[in-house]
């Protein structure tokens, strides 16, 4: 990393008071994006979608750091991020009740869908089970598994 890169990164790290573990993630991702895309770190940090986050006066320090990491993660893992987004979109489209939670593992490793139900009565549990039975047959659900199995790309 050259002097200009180090300075650009230092500005962000100081402004957001980035801790050691977050710093390691940022450094790894920035260096790997830089190597992959043939651009220096300073250029990456000056990209619109990054600069908008770090300069947004409405965001607190923690929100800025979270959004910065999300954005860099998207840049570093574009295809993984697209598949995750496609899965999340399908989950949203199913319009599940809040007591019925459908999630996939971080990084999609394991290829399994986790379904969580939270019921405070027998009747509620029956309603949620019926709701789950309804969405199981939906095309969205089948597409989620196809995405997890690498059968379709996002």
């Amino acid at each position, binding site marked *: 990393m050259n002097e200009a890169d180090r300075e650009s990164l230092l500005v962000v790290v100081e402004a957001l008071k980035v801790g050691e573990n977050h710093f390691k993630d940022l450094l*790894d991702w920035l*260096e*790997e*994006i830089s*190597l*992959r895309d043939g651009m220096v770190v300073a250029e990456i940090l000056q990209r619109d979608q990054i600069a908008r986050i770090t300069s947004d006066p409405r965001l607190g320090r923690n929100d800025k750091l979270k959004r910065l990491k999300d954005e860099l993660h998207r840049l*570093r*893992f*574009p*295809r*993984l991020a697209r*598949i995750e987004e496609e899965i999340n979109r399908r989950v949203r489209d199913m319009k599940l009740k809040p007591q019925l939670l459908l999630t996939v593992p*971080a*990084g*999609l*490793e*394991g*290829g*399994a869908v986790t379904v969580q139900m939270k019921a405070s009565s027998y009747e509620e549990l029956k309603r949620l089970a019926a709701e789950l039975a309804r969405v199981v047959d939906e095309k969205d659900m089948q597409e989620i598994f196809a*995405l*997890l*199995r*690498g*059968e379709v*790309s996002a």
Partner: protein
Amino acid sequence: MKSFAPEEIIVEAGSEQSPIFRNLKQAFPQIPFTFTDEPQALPVSRDPFGASKRRLFLMRHRGEFLKKCPGSDGQVCCNYFVINFASNCSMDCSYCYLQEYLADNPALKVFSNVDNLLTEADEMLGRHRKVFFRIGTGEITDSLALDPYIGFCAEVVPFFATQPNVLLELKTKSDCVESLLRLDPKERVVVAWSMNPQKVIDADERFTATFEERLAAARRCQAAGYKLGFHFDPMVEYDGWEADYRDMVERLFAAVDYRRIAWISMGVLRTTPGLKRAMRSRFPASRLPTGEQVLCPDGKMRYFQPLRVNMYRKMLGWIRAASPTVFVYLCMESKEVWEQVFGFAPSCEKELGKAMVPVA
């Protein structure tokens, strides 16, 4: 393939009587041999791991030679045993896990007490005649790259060739098969190559044989009566990988007789956070660390699952198109990935190991 030339050979007292020592003296008459009990620490260097590869230390191996392959936590294992006759490698692949595993080792170690190795193997194979063993020597070194200089194969192949319950696998990225051609494997030795398209070899497999050299060596071994193995490992994903890997598979099956192939394995590039740091430091131009790899439960980083499952399925399709019956397995992968690629997963490591025995 570039020939190996160490800068220094250090010999531990007591190793001068071994055939390996005699072979080294003959192979490197111009290189100074120093005799010691312990090699000096390496001088400070920008690349101590690279420097350690140019410094050969002939020493006795302490402890057991034969070990169960450690595999990887929670992954489907193939019930394999390993013999470490050397530690470290004369070649220098950018993705090699030894950069992390042997980071502090001051030299490329070769073990002189081959007689102890053979005694240990004889005892274990004799004690368990009803068990069929698959034993490999390519775990922490290349099985053949040093052979022209140390003559290890001539010492061990005749022994394993006469054992009824073992297959010895010699795994390599070299074309150093000359000494093997003078031996009779008696269907007990598999010579296996780690295969990658030439583009990957050029970029990330320094000092190894070219794809064509590996293929030519495989053909020579086939003609000499050896079974063959191929490891598409590590598979690397990049723009255009499909065309390169498909072409590689087609060229391979056009060159060798599929009936002589004992097994084929597939495994994608695996790293760890520590290995990636070593790679970026030692091979700053390598693009391998930029792949979309995520941390898996066993602590290794692999391409995210849908991506690598898709890679495996495509490779399997090309292999099956060339040879519908050849035995194919995955290396260091989870049951979930097995199921997504093959439609089944071995129930236990013995099942996978046994499935590989009928080829013996």
